[in-house]
């Protein structure tokens, strides 16, 4: 059983403060949807509204066409994994998992079978008689997921479930979650502020900021065609470079932008809808390369080097003072204070106008 979740024009207020402002969203059956955004953007509140832990002030939430926003949490056929796991400390692992099933009167033999199956699936079968206090963080996390799985809900809600784990365990658990989602066919909503979790797990990502949705799209859409400057800033590491530019008018095909130091960069952004004037050029570090033999379009002085092993990030100050992060190979020979020539891949740049609306490259246009 899976869920098609429809959120229509929902509003949530805490006193005078509006924390969700007329938000609409549709989540497909079996989809892994990630709500991504900074702290306070409303993503957890939205998740809690779906769970029934927060009331909906306006709008509706439906599952498979039936309204659920007026139902108590236990009647929504939804399971949730909390950031703090929220395991019952005085109950054993098995009792933690069985508690919800007992409350709805499921037969004891069915409960035992489901608990055993979840224990096997999550490799916590040997921990069933322990209490949460006797488990490591990762084991508790699995129990929390197991408690959700045994209910066989229409939808799973995850509220930043990896944020309490250490870095290594977080990566491992992330991979396990990705595997789990293919075994447990169900709609899943995952809240995080970690873009890597979002990019690696999601079918689609909802990027939220300041109570509203900035963009909904697949991870690669979000990464390669960010709808707003916020999305471009929030997704991707290092953060996208932003350089003030001027767009020369009267062209056909791809627009040419002029950097502050007078450098002309030919892009693959169609000029048709662009008006000549001032824009912000967005370029990811991997689209700015150190050019051999001074063949680049511009140059700058190296401020900082970040050697990440497989690649090197080079923080370069251009002649007009703007800082651009460029990427080079792991064994880059560049040193701090060097003057380097930079090439810019015009087919992978973005332009943002004064209202932060984004303009992207199109295939087939010369960059």
């Amino acid at each position, binding site marked *: 059983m899976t869920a098609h979740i429809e959120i229509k024009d929902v509003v949530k207020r805490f006193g005078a403060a509006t924390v969700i402002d007329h938000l609409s969203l549709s989540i497909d059956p079996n989809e892994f949807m990630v709500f991504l955004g900074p702290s306070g953007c409303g993503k957890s509140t939205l998740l809690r509204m779906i*769970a*029934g*832990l927060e009331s909906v002030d306006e709008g509706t939430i439906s599952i498979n066409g039936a309204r659920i926003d007026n139902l*108590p*949490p*236990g*009647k929504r056929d*939804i*399971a*949730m994994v*909390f*950031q*703090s796991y*929220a*395991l*019952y*400390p*005085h109950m054993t692992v098995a009792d933690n998992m069985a*508690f*919800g099933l007992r*409350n*709805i009167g499921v037969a004891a033999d069915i409960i035992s079978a489901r608990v055993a199956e979840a224990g096997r699936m999550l490799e916590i079968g040997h921990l069933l008689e322990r209490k949460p206090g006797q488990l490591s963080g990762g084991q508790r996390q699995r129990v929390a997921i197991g*408690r959700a799985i045994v*209910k066989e809900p229409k939808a799973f809600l995850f509220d930043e479930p990896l944020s309490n784990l250490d870095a290594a365990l977080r990566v491992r658990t992330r991979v396990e979650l990705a595997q789990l989602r293919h075994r447990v066919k169900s709609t899943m909503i995952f809240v995080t502020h970690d873009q890597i979790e979002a990019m690696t797990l999601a079918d689609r990502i909802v990027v939220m900021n300041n109570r509203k949705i900035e963009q909904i799209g697949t991870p690669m859409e979000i990464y390669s065609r960010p709808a707003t400057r916020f999305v471009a800033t929030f997704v991707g590491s290092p953060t996208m470079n932003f350089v003030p530019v001027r767009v020369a008018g009267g062209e056909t095909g791809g627009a040419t932008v002029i950097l502050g130091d007078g450098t002309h960069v030919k892009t693959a952004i169609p000029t048709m809808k662009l008006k000549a004037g001032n824009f912000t050029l967005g370029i990811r570090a991997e689209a700015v390369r150190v050019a051999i033999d001074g063949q680049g379009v511009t140059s700058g002085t190296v401020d900082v080097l970040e050697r990440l092993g497989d690649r090197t990030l080079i923080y370069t100050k251009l002649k007009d003072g703007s800082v651009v992060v460029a990427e080079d190979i792991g064994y880059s020979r560049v040193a701090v204070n060097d003057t380097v020539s930079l090439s810019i891949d015009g087919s992978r740049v973005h332009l943002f106008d004064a209202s932060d609306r984004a303009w992207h490259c199109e295939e087939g246009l010369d960059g």
Partner: protein
Amino acid sequence: MSNARSTSIMGRESGDRVVLLLVIALALVMVAPVLWVIGLSLKHNAELMANTNSVFYPPYTITNYINILGTSSVFRWILNSLIVSGGLTIFTLVLASLAGYGFARLNFPGRDILFIIVLLGLAVPEQAVLIARHQIFGMLKLHNSYQGLILPGLSAPFGVFLMTQYFRAIPKELDEAALLDNASRFTIFWKVLLPLTVPAQATLGIFTFLWSWNDYLWPLISGTKKEMFTLTVGMASTQTNFAQSEGLGFLMAQAVFAGAPILILYLFFQKYIVTAVSGAAVR
């Protein structure tokens, strides 16, 4: 460097020894009167009348204890104390838990004001309401009854405060997880939250029981009939003008007898009592 370290360890060890000696001395000061009482209870009254130093040498006797079992009302008083203290403890735990849950978890109009009013109860000394309470209980014909001895103790603002704070400290995610697990409000209270408050319940239960067991003023006023005396009142009633000279051994045997249930309680709940007292000290 190593010399400095060994000097510091030696200094710490000698410091520990001083502390240990102080603790032993203090323990002796505490236990000496108890041993004195036990010793006196094992001597004939007549012998003690001549000289209480006879406690240091035989003969010893259990006559005083046999006299208690045969002639005294002390069993009735112990029973009364058990009923009153036990009843008061149980009802206090039930009421304080429910009230604490309500104040910590439920949203209802006037909750915060009501909580302040309950806390104000901590500032009202028992003596201030004693006469009014005596009159009301008289009108309701509650004197010389177990209800009359138990009811006043049920207004326990400290218990409500303690349980409220304890419930507040339990993460709300547990309630929410239980809500998603289809649990009713009562199930959440009974099966999820209440078991987590056992340490607070133990603290409150022990303090309530000990306070009630040792309470003297209200039982003295409310329980005027001998068969409704609690142990404290009953013990005091036996102390006639010459009891301390003519019946000292018997009196001490009664005291030992009266203290025994508390001792047993302590042996059973030693861990919780130590935690409760040290916790209260830290707070």
